C-alpha cells in the first residue's frame, strides 16, 4: 500500500503540489487524471524520490519512503517515463533487459535477451526491433520499449506516465489490456497517468483527479460517471465550459 499525505512541492515560485492526500491499495490499478501541467508527473517522481518533496510523507507498506533503504526500495518499482527516457547509447534489448544484466537480478546475457524479446512481443514489437537503437524507432515504438523496460523485471509497483500517448487506437487498446493483465494476473500495484478516457475505463480500479495541487476527486471507476463534482464532470466531457478555465 502506498500512502501519500499532505504532500507539497514547489518549483521556485510555482506551487505545483499543495497538499496531496492519496492512498493506493496493493494489487489495484489507480489512474490519475488532470489537466496538463497540474503536477501528475511530479507526483510520481516524488514517490520514487526523483523529486524531493518540500513537506508531507509518503509511505510504502507503512515504511517512510524517504528513510527506506534506497536499493531495496527501488528494486520493487518499475517506471515508464513520459518521454520514454531510453538509453540511446545501447540497443533496444539492452534497454529492456537493463536490470537483468547487472545488479542483484543479473543473469546470463542470452537469457536476459530472451526475456527482453518476450517483453517486446507483449508490447507489440517484433524481435528485429531488439537490435536497433532507440533513435531509429518512431515515438510510439520508443514509448512501448519504455513500457517493456518498466515491466521487464516484473516489479511489484509500476508507474506508467501516459502509456498510450502517441499510439494508434489499436495499439492503445493492446497496451491498455496489457496493463490490466499486469494488475489482475501478476497482482502488481499500478499508478497510471493518462489523458485518454477510454484508457481510464479499461485500466482503472480507482480514479483520482488532480487539480490545483490537490486531489479533487477520488473514487472507484464505476462511480466516475455519476459523480457530481463539476470539475470532474467537465474533465470527462472535455467541455471548454465549466469551473476549469480552458484559456489561461
Amino acid at each position, binding site marked *: 500500500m502506498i500512502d501519500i499525505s499532505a504532500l507539497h512541492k514547489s518549483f521556485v515560485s510555482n506551487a505545483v503540489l499543495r497538499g496531496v492526500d492519496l492512498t493506493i491499495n496493493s494489487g489495484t490499478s489507480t489512474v490519475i487524471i488532470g489537466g496538463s501541467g497540474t503536477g501528475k508527473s511530479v507526483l510520481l517522481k516524488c514517490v520514487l524520490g*526523483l523529486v524531493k518533496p518540500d513537506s508531507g510523507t509518503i509511505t510504502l507498506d507503512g515504511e517512510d519512503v524517504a528513510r527506506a533503504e534506497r536499493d531495496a526500495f527501488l528494486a520493487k518499482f518499475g517506471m515508464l517515463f513520459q*518521454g520514454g527516457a531510453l538509453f540511446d547509447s545501447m540497443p533496444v534489448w539492452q534497454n529492456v533487459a537493463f536490470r537483468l544484466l547487472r545488479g542483484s537480478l543479473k543473469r546470463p546475457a542470452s537469457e536476459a535477451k530472451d526475456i527482453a524479446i518476450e517483453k517486446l512481443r507483449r508490447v507489440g514489437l517484433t524481435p528485429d526491433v531488439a537490435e536497433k537503437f532507440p533513435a531509429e524507432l518512431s515515438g510510439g515504438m520508443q514509448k512501448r520499449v519504455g513500457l517493456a523496460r518498466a515491466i521487464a523485471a516484473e516489479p511489484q509497483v509500476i508507474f506508467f506516465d501516459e502509456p498510450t500517448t502517441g499510439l494508434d487506437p489499436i495499439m492503445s487498446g493492446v497496451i491498455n489490456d496489457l496493463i490490466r493483465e499486469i494488475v489482475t494476473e501478476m497482482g502488481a500495484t499500478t499508478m497510471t497517468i493518462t489523458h485518454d478516457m477510454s484508457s481510464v475505463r479499461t485500466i482503472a480500479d480507482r480514479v483520482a483527479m488532480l487539480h490545483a495541487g490537490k486531489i479533487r476527486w477520488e473514487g472507484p471507476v464505476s462511480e466516475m460517471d455519476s459523480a457530481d463534482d463539476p470539475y470532474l464532470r467537465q474533465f470527462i466531457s472535455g467541455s471548454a465550459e465549466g469551473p476549469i478555465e480552458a484559456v489561461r
Partner: protein
Amino acid sequence: MILLAPIAALGRSTLALMASIGRVAIYCAHTLRHIFTPPWYPKEFLTQLLQIGWLSLPVVGLTALFTGGALALQIYAGGSRFSAEAVVPSIVAIGMARELGPVLGGLMVAGRVAAAIAAETGTMKVTEQIDALVTLSTHPMKYLTAPRVVAATLCLPVLVAVGDSIGIMGGYLVGTTRLGFNPSNYLHNTVDFLEFWDVASGLVKGAVFGFIVALMGCYHGMNSGRGAQGVGRATTNAVVSASILILAANYLLTELFFTA
C-alpha cells in the same frame, strides 16, 4: 545606495563563486567514495578507456608534434643570441616533459573529452535518462561518473607520455632537417640531460588533469539546465572550468614539485 551597488554585486558574485566551489568539492568527495565502493561497472570503464584514451591519441599527438617543432625553432633563435644553440635538444626535451606535454595535452583533452562528457550526461539529464537509471536501481555516480573519472585519470599519463615522445621527435625533425643538428648528437643530448623526475612529474600532472577533465564534464553535465540551451551551457562551462582548473593546478603542482 547607488554607490554601494558595485560592492553588493561583488559580494554576490563572491558568494556565488564560493557556493560553486563548495558544490564541486562535495561532488568530488562523492565521486571518490563511489570509485572505491562497489558495485563497479567494468564494461562502462572499458568503453571510456577507448573513448577518452585511444580516440584522443591523434589530437594529442598532432599537438605535441607541432609544438615540439616550434619549440626547437624558438629555442634555437633565442639561444643563438648568446651562442647557446647547443641547448636546443635538452631544453626541448625538458620543456615538453615538464610543461608542454601535460599542459597542452590536458587542454586538448579538456576540449575534446570534457565537452563530450558534459554533452552526453547533460542530454541524459534533460531526457530523464538519469532519472531512469535511478529507477533501475543504478546509481548515476557509479555508472556514469566513476568510470569516466577513473578512465581519464589513467589515460592522461599515457597520453602525456606519448605526447612527450612525439613532441621530442618533432624537435628532432626540425633540429636535424632545418637547424643543421647532427642526428646522433641531438639524440645523445636529449637522453643525457633528461632526468627521471622531468618525465615522472609530467605524468603525475597528467593524472591530475585527467581527473579534473572528467570531473568537470560529469559535474556540469549532471547539473545541466533544462533543454538544449541547458546542455549547451553545461558543455561550455565544462570546457572553460576544466581548462582554468588545469592551468591553476599546473602552477600549484609546479610549485610543489620544483621549488623548496
